[in-house]
């Protein structure tokens, strides 16, 4: 009884520690971006007031934005606003940043989820197949893919796909996501594929898929190799362990040895990597969205960075930090499911 209570207590403590850690990282990130946003070379008030504004107007705008206050006051006010969920207004769109982000995020989520599902699943399966059949002509293909995947720059893959499949062959649109206009598809989630799927009209679903193909393919090509290589080497390493020989000596079927015995032990590094990739994904879509003019978080970030839109920049770094740390913390909770020693330690 006390044992259980102690265990619950330590679990709570662990949860609180990781929560505190997340808060610490986010706070540091916010502070760093705050400092960065105040050293931008461009004058935000000047940008906000417009090019033809006179010095008085600029001063007025500056006072309105609170930029004439001492830095400490600005910092305090920024933190206070943040706690109430106010991320400020974008200089470009003149909208609250939070609204901009909410409009942009679904399109990015669509890209991220679609590509992530594909490269995680294919990466794991291909890695297993590689370890399971280590010889044969298919390994040449896998090795080739692995080498290319780690060394190829995202922007190059995107451009080549665009030039070949959209430009020359015209199989897919050059740019943009699913166009709702005139289709009568209600914007429920903001993700073209999901929304068209909800209407159940095949031609529309096909259209949504067509717009999605090239950007998703770009992300898959550049992310697949890591998972695949890691899965393969990790599983291969497990299959060399003595316990596998023991299972073989017991006459256990090879398929059962690979999938029941070795696979679980080999997942740990793969899960870590998949977690990191998911955590990075918001940053990872920037280049792809720029190439394919995909109106999501990445393109919004690109525009904000280009225009020194400091409120947007701070919101973008904040959001991606929160996502990254949270995903990492969640991944940390998966390990005990893979390793009984950790599970019992909880």
């Amino acid at each position, binding site marked *: 009884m006390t044992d259980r209570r102690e265990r619950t207590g330590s679990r709570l403590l662990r949860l609180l520690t990781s929560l505190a850690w997340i808060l610490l990282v986010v706070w540091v*990130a916010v502070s760093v971006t705050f400092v960065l946003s105040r050293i931008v070379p461009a004058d935000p008030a000047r940008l906000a007031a417009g090019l033809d504004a006179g010095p008085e107007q600029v001063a007025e705008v500056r006072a309105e934005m609170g930029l004439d206050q001492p830095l400490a006051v600005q910092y305090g006010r920024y933190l206070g606003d943040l706690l109430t969920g106010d991320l400020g207004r974008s200089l470009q769109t003149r909208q609250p940043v939070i609204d901009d982000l909410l409009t942009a995020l679904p399109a990015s989520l669509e890209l991220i989820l679609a590509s992530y599902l594909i490269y995680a699943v294919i990466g794991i399966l291909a890695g297993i197949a590689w370890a399971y059949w280590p010889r044969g002509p298919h390994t040449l293909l896998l090795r080739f893919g692995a080498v290319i995947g780690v060394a190829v*720059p995202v922007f190059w893959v995107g451009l080549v796909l*665009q030039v070949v499949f959209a430009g020359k062959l015209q199989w897919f649109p050059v740019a943009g996501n699913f166009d709702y206009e005139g289709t009568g598809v209600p914007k429920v989630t903001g993700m073209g594929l999901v929304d068209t799927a909800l209407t159940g009209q095949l031609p529309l679903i096909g259209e949504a898929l067509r717009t999605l193909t090239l950007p998703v393919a770009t992300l898959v090509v550049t992310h697949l190799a890591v998972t695949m290589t890691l899965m393969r080497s990790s599983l291969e390493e497990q299959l060399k362990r003595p316990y596998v020989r023991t299972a073989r000596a017991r006459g256990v079927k090879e398929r059962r040895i690979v999938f029941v015995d070795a696979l679980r032990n080999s997942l740990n590094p793969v899960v870590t990597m998949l977690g990191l990739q998911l955590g990075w994904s918001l940053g990872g879509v920037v280049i792809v969205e720029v190439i394919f003019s995909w109106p999501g978080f990445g393109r919004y970030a690109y525009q904000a960075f280009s225009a020194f839109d400091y409120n947007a920049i701070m919101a973008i770094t904040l959001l991606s930090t929160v996502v990254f740390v949270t995903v990492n913390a969640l991944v940390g909770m998966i390990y005990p499911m893979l390793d009984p020693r950790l599970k019992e330690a909880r």
Partner: protein
Amino acid sequence: MTRAHTAAPGGDTRRSRAPRRPTWSQLWAGATVLAIAALLLVPGWLAPSDPYHLDVSQRFQPPTAAHLFGTDDAGRDIFSRVVHGARYSIGTSVVVVTAAALFGTVYGAAAAWFGGALDRVLMRVVDVFLAFPYLVFAMAISASLGRGLTSALIALVALWWPSYARMVRGQVLSLIKDYHVRAARTLGASGPQILRWHVLPHTYDQVLVRYTLDLGQALIALTGLSFLGLGAQPPTPEWGLLIADAKQYALTAWWAAVLPGCVVFLVTLNFMSLGDRLRRRGGPR
């Protein structure tokens, strides 16, 4: 980087049974390293024409013998631009990784050597850095410092050193328990002496492997930043910027974007396979 390697006493045992005759893949690796060095040091000898020379009559020429990679919208020879751009792209990547490796090594070694509270504080800082999504932060830092190659460089170094710090700290921690270090201590060697001569040399092999692999990754990251307009600025023939400019007319003049990208890919591939080769030579550790 070669100097670091010769300083490693551990390297000698392996060198003693060095291969008698270089294999084809070793020759290939050597040749590509020489080619990259030539790009960096004497681009003028390799480039057929002036990378900044505008000639509107020659715009959008497809690849020919005269213009190996074709010409861009201003009639500049893209091959020459790529050759001259190596200095910016590869050169900056080398600086990024070198600075990150040096700082990270010193930082990690110091944390491990002094231990205790200092170690805990130093490593917490590393943890915080590693808990940042580095792509977005690289963009944010680079944008805030004012767009330019130097800003991109600073941004990448700031985000790259912690992984070296963590790696070197781990190695130093296990090395200072080693008998040869205890022996040196018994013989009365001072702390800095031990660190310099008996501990750090043994970390160089792994740092070198990581360094080589990272050169490729830094090139991808740097050209990516430039591609987004957060690195080099026009008219620098930096590779990422070159490709970003060519993106607008990629559908009509594919060569202007695709061929320089090919070069980025090949150079990265080369660094990666070089790193892989070093790792395999070092054996499984």
